């Protein structure tokens, strides 16, 4: 294993120390239990957004804490759900009196830990709603599985709900927006290489030089099919076709197109992929009204990418354009 780390057991703690030192104007970090929260917490009179998940997906979620997005993020160990005590303490710290929305990706561990946290928060008289994101079309049969995984739509939901919270919308309204994003967003990813969890020390799975994994999640867990490596255009075509057919997205739908790097794929390649994804969307008659390109929901150093489509309406467009000021996503004033 070749990584820019000190001790494997210190990876998450030292990362959080770095975030605190790099962005003191935006966030603070609480240790034991670990959570990242807005420097000006609590924001009185506004719904507070709390998310969290395993570490290794940076900038998600800690990089999305700040004005117009999350109020707190709970990082677990690498690829491991955070624990209820983190979520409870984070919720207590950022609750501005209008309730707390938990944005949860659909993984068994995340769902169970957030459920326990919601129970604990309710016992402390904090109003909590939870919305589960499950947008990964690679998981086909949800009847006999843990259901679809939460991937790219999570980033979009955190931005859009954050904007709604800043506008002063109520907990149930912000939760409705989150459900709307989940209902209209679909994603699929692929991997060119595996990734190495620091405390494991070797790649999570073997992927030969000339093969790729289609339908990969964000935890280095193998996807559904493995095949010979293809060109960027062919790969993007496979992902986009699966995503478009799933909702399905229809002619003249306005969409947000999000092309995401799994961490190891550089922007030069990501823009090649974006180019093709944009062309395919237009060939299907979709109107790419907004986009996002970059590494936002990653899987350590895995090479690969994912595409997410979100069907937009006027409300979502205006929430997307609203100012956001976080370590990883910034625009507007």
């Amino acid at each position, binding site marked *: 294993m070749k990584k820019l780390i000190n001790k494997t057991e210190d990876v998450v703690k030292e990362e959080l120390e770095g975030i605190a030192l790099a962005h003191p104007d935006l966030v603070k970090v609480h240790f034991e239990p670990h959570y990242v929260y807005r420097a000006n917490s609590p924001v009185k009179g506004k719904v507070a957004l709390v998310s969290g998940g395993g570490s290794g997906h940076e900038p998600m979620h800690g990089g999305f804490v700040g004005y117009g997005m999350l109020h707190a993020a709970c990082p677990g160990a690498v690829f491991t759900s955070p624990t209820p005590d983190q979520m409870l303490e984070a919720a207590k710290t950022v609750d501005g009196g209008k309730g707390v929305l938990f944005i949860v990706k659909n993984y068994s*561990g995340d769902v169970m830990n957030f459920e326990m946290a919601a129970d604990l928060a309710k016992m402390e008289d904090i109003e909590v709603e939870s919305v589960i994101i499950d947008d990964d079309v690679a998981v086909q049969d949800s009847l006999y*599985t843990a259901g679809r995984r939460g991937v790219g739509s999570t980033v979009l939901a955190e931005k859009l709900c954050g904007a709604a919270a800043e506008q002063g919308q109520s907990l149930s309204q912000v939760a409705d927006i989150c459900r709307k994003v989940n209902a209209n967003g679909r994603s699929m990813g692929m991997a060119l290489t595996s990734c190495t969890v620091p405390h494991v020390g070797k790649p999570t799975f073997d992927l030969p030089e000339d093969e790729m994994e289609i339908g990969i999640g964000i935890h280095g867990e193998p996807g559904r099919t493995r095949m010979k490596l293809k060109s960027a255009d062919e790969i993007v075509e496979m992902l986009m076709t699966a995503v478009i057919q799933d909702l399905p997205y229809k002619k003249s739908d306005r969409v947000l197109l999000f092309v995401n790097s799994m961490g190891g794929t550089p922007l030069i390649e990501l823009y090649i992929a974006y180019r093709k994804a944009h062309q395919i969307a237009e060939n299907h008659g979709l109107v790419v009204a907004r986009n996002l390109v970059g590494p936002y929901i990653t899987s350590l150093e895995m090479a690969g990418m994912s595409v997410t489509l979100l069907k937009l309406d006027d409300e979502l467009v205006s929430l997307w354009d609203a100012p956001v000021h976080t370590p990883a996503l910034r625009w507007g004033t």
Partner: protein
Amino acid sequence: MVISHQDTLTWLIACAKTLEENREYLIELDAAIGDADHGANMDRGFKAVLQKLSNSNDQDIGAIFKTVGMTLVSTVGGAAGPLYGTFFLQAGIKLAGQPEMTLPDWVAALEAGIDGVQMRGKAQTGDKTMLDALLPAMEALKQKSLDGASLEDALTACTEAARQGMEATIPLVARKGRASYLGERSAGHQDPGATSSFLILKAASDCWK
């Protein structure tokens, strides 16, 4: 023959030891069908349990189990944290105020713990989860207890049933947890959760016989 609170502590120490020894093995099993964190998470969680218990002189098995449950919930993470945490919390409620337990007490505690796991994880037998080891083990223990068998006999039957349940997960297609995303590709691998459950029950048998 009763199991004292001291025997209970001895078992928990043995759990920490076996989970430390099998850390890499559980990681390997999990890497095949999950996300390679189970071994590290269980090892971290039970190390924290030992730390917590070394600072307490609870003589009430219910209180000891409650400490174990809360510690696992806050240190393990993943799905195993809430599941094993709930197991010990529910088992602890059954044993509240008891400085020692009999075989029927242990059956009742195990049953309550497993009910908690089912409630939290919503899994059933055959879903390729820890329940595939826990449920047959509990049934075997319960049957032996009803038959008036000795503690030693009952624990042997319990461990054997857990082992068979664990091994029987190999051909199964996972329906819960991260392994379920693999569909048919999850078959042919032993479930890491069933394996850690077997190790924990085997430790009880090794300590209490």
